[in-house]
């Protein structure tokens, strides 16, 4: 574990140095764009709820809190797994061969070797926005709520890691990653709104099949006192099952890898 942490820190520091040396202006534009995008999503909510007042039972402050939570948790997961966007190229050009030969796990290099320093920089403003939105809801910020949300984030990370492993496994087999990950992102984005808007069927899919409900609606409901934390045990179990299945699929997919390009 220590070796993985050391390598990850080294790789991330290199990314950061490269960013500072080559693309400072671009970095500022990127950060501004990300914050502007979040602001437009808030404007959308303001526009709707200025007239509608309630969205499936949630008021404006609560809907904003859900959106802010989703934004934070989603960027936190993306922060660590940026490598997926480059994975296809690495299979095509043969770089993946070196990952297989490396003493560290090939999944580590495939997923975690391209941490975006800009996401790291954005983490603090995003966290600030969540705190602002939380205060706006009028519900108290307690130590227990914070600890439970951290627990949820850990479960979400396991779950999302499983999905990323599944997607790169498909990449190993069929060389298709880019559109699959974008499709996954589209699906994940559905969690930015209270999942009750998707009706009973949609909510069930987003709870039991793709448990993106954990990314925003459940932590928010927990803060609002509408969710029993004991259910998190079931979600933790589901996340572990997903991880186990995705690892199984990954190993099966590796057997089909023929290193055609190298």
């Amino acid at each position, binding site marked *: 574990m220590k070796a993985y942490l050391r390598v990850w820190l080294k790789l991330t520091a290199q990314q950061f140095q490269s960013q500072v040396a*080559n*693309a400072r*202006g*671009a*970095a500022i*534009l*990127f950060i*501004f*764009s*990300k914050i*502007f*995008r979040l602001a*437009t999503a808030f*404007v*959308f909510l303001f*526009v*709707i709820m200025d*007239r*509608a007042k309630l*969205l*499936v039972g949630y008021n404006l402050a609560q809907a904003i809190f859900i959106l802010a939570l989703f934004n934070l948790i989603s960027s936190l997961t993306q922060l660590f797994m940026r490598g997926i966007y480059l994975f296809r190229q690495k299979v095509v050009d043969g770089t993946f061969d070196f990952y297989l030969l490396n003493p560290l796990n090939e999944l580590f290099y495939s997923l975690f070797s391209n941490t975006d320093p800009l996401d790291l920089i954005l983490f603090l403003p995003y966290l600030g926005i969540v705190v602002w939105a939380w205060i706006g809801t009028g519900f108290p910020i307690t130590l227990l709520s914070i600890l439970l949300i951290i627990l949820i984030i850990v479960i979400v990370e396991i779950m999302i890691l499983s999905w990323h492993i599944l997607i790169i496994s498909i990449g190993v087999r069929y060389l*298709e990653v880019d*559109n*699959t990950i*974008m*499709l996954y992102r*589209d*699906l994940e*984005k*559905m969690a*930015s*709104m209270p999942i*009750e*808007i*998707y*009706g009973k069927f*949609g909510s069930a899919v987003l709870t039991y099949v793709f448990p993106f409900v954990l990314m925003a609606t459940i932590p928010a409901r927990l803060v609002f006192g509408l969710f029993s934390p004991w259910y998190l045990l079931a979600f933790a179990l589901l996340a572990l099952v997903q991880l186990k299945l995705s690892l199984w699929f990954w190993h099966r997919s590796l057997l089909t890898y023929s290193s055609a390009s190298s």
Partner: protein
Amino acid sequence: MIMWRVRQIFVFLIPFFIWKAVLGQGGDIYGYSFAAIMTYLFGTTVLRSLVMGSRTIDLGWMINSGSLTIPLMRPFNIFSFFFIRDLADKLFNLSFMFLELPLIYLIFRPPIFLQSNPTYLLLAFGSLLLAILIYFYINIIFGSLAFWTRDIWAPRFLLMVIMEFATGAMFPLDMLPIAWQKIILLTPFPYLLYVPLKVYLGIDPLIYFHLAASLGWVIVLGLLSKLIWQRGIKSYEAEGR
């Protein structure tokens, strides 16, 4: 390919369910009923493919990789070459839409308003052509930045984020406060989706003014893109070739 097209359907999902939650039981918001907003969303889905389907977005990559050299050496106008590639891409998208649109319709059953007034249809067609040209010139301008910098992904990302909001793709711009609308209408972005759709729906009180503004933007952006291109091409080094 399949995944890419499935995404086109997914784009429709979130706004559909949000508006269904808000307006599904009847009533209206800012004068939009559920049927009107669905027609608008359905329209933006169609227009996105037609207006924003483009190959010119890879111009920056062509400059940085040096692959621009090949079309530059060919005996034709480079802008015409890019525009024809764009049209081919739009035709490609259009062919998929014949399958996807009925599919979206069957899945979501959105109440759709079909315009039957030939004047509005003609004006909407004109507005669509102008939107295609505006988007083309915007792409040329942003792609040309690669003549001076390798980091074109950040300006392009900013452009994408601004367009998502200012074209009216998220929601009709007339839901915003009047002052915001006036500011956004001073930019070329609402003439890409919002104005053509309002013209199609026949609910734009300033139809001819907005069409004239679209034409104005085509001329301004056309001249600007030519100016930037002429300056940029002088610093092109065919790097990588």
